């Protein structure tokens, strides 16, 4: 049997199993807006952990982490720097957000801003910024899905049909089962991702070097500069590392989809316990680094570093295993993409259209509009991913810096009585403007600092100054 047929069969079985779980989770349940978006606020510890892990560990874990280790070297360590810190931030913020969400029946991040600052234009602006910055993240998942299936099928499936099939499945189970379907698909996705990362991350160094220690010893001899800052880059030094770790640690849970996931928990204690156990999942990250670092010695000169992990697997393991990795990778793109589509559609319908354009909309009409928007967003993301350019990565970096600008409004909104609506509004506008300006003029990093971090400093200064006026 041809290798591509074997690999393709494994990918198809895994994606079909994921789709079945996604559809089945929504059967026998009345899918009103509350159930569709926040699962009736009834998710326990395990489902919240799976949902959060499903959203945190995306195609970036699968391709990006090993790709950065391969192409950039030591700067990739910023991921290990921010991950423990972001869970500490989530420990103190998400339970508070949940308490507000339960009290006021909130469903989205923009709802939080509406209730806390009592201004529909601020809420609509937060929703708009959220949707705008989710789109490139969605594009990244799509592009990653296409790359994974194309390589894992030995080129039998081109990336464009892979993206179309994958995302039509995602849109279908998001429409049918909402956030509950996504959480249950995460069960399969997380099991496969954990197995793949642990097995490949340990096996590759052992097969080629006799262990992880000997692999690093060989790397130190061959490329000593690769393992210390700035690695293979010229401008990602220590100040970039510190500023990026701080930005992402405080900004990570500002992605709108994490607010929806938090509201789905059945208690604030669930979120606290989740923050305690989530760092264990991060152990997959260094394992992905090991594969990327091994590839720098085994497969030098790859045109696209993001393919280093898949290329190593294809070179090292039999076709069925590559198919297994390909299927896991496809689900790793589909699960977070599902949450992003659901969140962006809800923000558009509930926080932009209803308050600004059609104030008389009922919850049923909002749900209907959100479900229609699911299809529009899916098609828009597909179109842009198929015709995407290399600027996609810079768009993603804009995304991270962009949503990070919500942090002052959220944290001061929770812990300070002196912060005001005009202060937060002015702060977000300033932060987003400074960040986008620095990105577009290619001043990231600026004076060695991450542009998003600089924008966040401006944001905090403006929030403080305007609130105290």
């Amino acid at each position, binding site marked *: 049997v041809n290798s591509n047929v074997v690999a393709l069969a494994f990918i198809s079985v895994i994606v079909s199993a994921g789709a079945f779980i996604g559809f089945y989770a929504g059967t026998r349940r009345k899918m009103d807006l509350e159930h569709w978006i926040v699962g009736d606020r009834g998710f326990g510890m395990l489902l919240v952990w799976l949902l959060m892990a499903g959203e945190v560990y995306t195609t970036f874990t699968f391709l990006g982490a090993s790709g950065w280790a391969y192409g950039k070297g030591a700067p990739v360590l910023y991921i*290990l720097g921010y991950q423990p810190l972001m869970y500490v931030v989530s420990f103190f913020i998400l339970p508070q957000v949940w308490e*507000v969400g339960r009290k006021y029946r909130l469903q989205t991040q923009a709802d939080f801003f509406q209730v806390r600052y009592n201004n529909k234009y601020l809420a609509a602006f937060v929703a708009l910024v959220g949707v705008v910055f989710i789109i490139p993240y969605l594009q990244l998942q799509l592009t990653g899905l296409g790359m994974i299936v194309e390589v894992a099928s030995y080129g039998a499936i081109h990336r464009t049909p892979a993206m179309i099939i994958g995302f039509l499945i995602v849109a279908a189970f998001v429409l049918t089962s909402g956030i509950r379907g996504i959480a249950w698909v995460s069960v399969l996705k997380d099991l496969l991702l954990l197995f793949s990362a642990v097995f490949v991350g340990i096996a590759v160094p052992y097969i080629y070097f006799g*262990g992880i220690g000997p692999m690093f010893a060989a790397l130190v001899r061959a490329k000593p500069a690769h393992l*210390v800052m700035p690695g293979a880059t010229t401008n990602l030094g220590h100040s970039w590392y510190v500023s990026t770790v701080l930005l992402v640690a405080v900004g990570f849970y500002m992605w709108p989809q994490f607010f929806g996931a938090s509201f789905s928990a059945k208690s*604030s204690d669930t979120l606290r316990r989740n923050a*305690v156990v989530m760092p264990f999942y991060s152990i997959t*990250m*260094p394992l992905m680094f090991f594969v990327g670092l091994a590839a720098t010695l085994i497969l030098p000169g790859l045109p696209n570093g993001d393919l280093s992990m898949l290329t190593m697997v294809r070179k090292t393991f039999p076709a069925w295993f590559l198919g297994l990795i390909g299927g896991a990778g496809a689900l790793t793109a589909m699960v977070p993409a599902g949450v992003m589509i659901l969140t962006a559609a809800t923000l558009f319908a509930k926080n932009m259209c209803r308050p600004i354009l059609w104030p008389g909309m009922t919850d049923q009409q909002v749900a209907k509009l959100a479900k229609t928007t699911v299809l529009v967003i899916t098609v828009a993301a597909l179109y842009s991913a198929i015709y995407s350019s290399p600027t996609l990565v810079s768009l993603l970096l804009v995304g991270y810096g962009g949503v990070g600008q919500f942090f002052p409004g959220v944290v001061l909104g929770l812990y300070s009585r002196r912060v005001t609506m005009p202060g937060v509004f002015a702060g977000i506008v300033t932060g987003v403007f400074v960040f986008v300006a620095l990105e577009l003029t290619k001043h990231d990093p600026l004076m060695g600092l991450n542009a998003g971090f600089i924008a966040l400093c401006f944001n905090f200064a403006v929030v403080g100054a305007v609130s105290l006026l």
Partner: protein
Amino acid sequence: MVLGLPFNFFWLISWLLLTPLCMWGAYRLEAPRASDSHNEGGGTP
């Protein structure tokens, strides 16, 4: 090199494993306080 890893890798991976322990300590301290404030009414704004 520590345990076969460059020191920067060793240090950061150690904190991946130590963070849940520290967070568990924080949880033990925070959970009783949180349930007290919850009983008093809770909910920030």
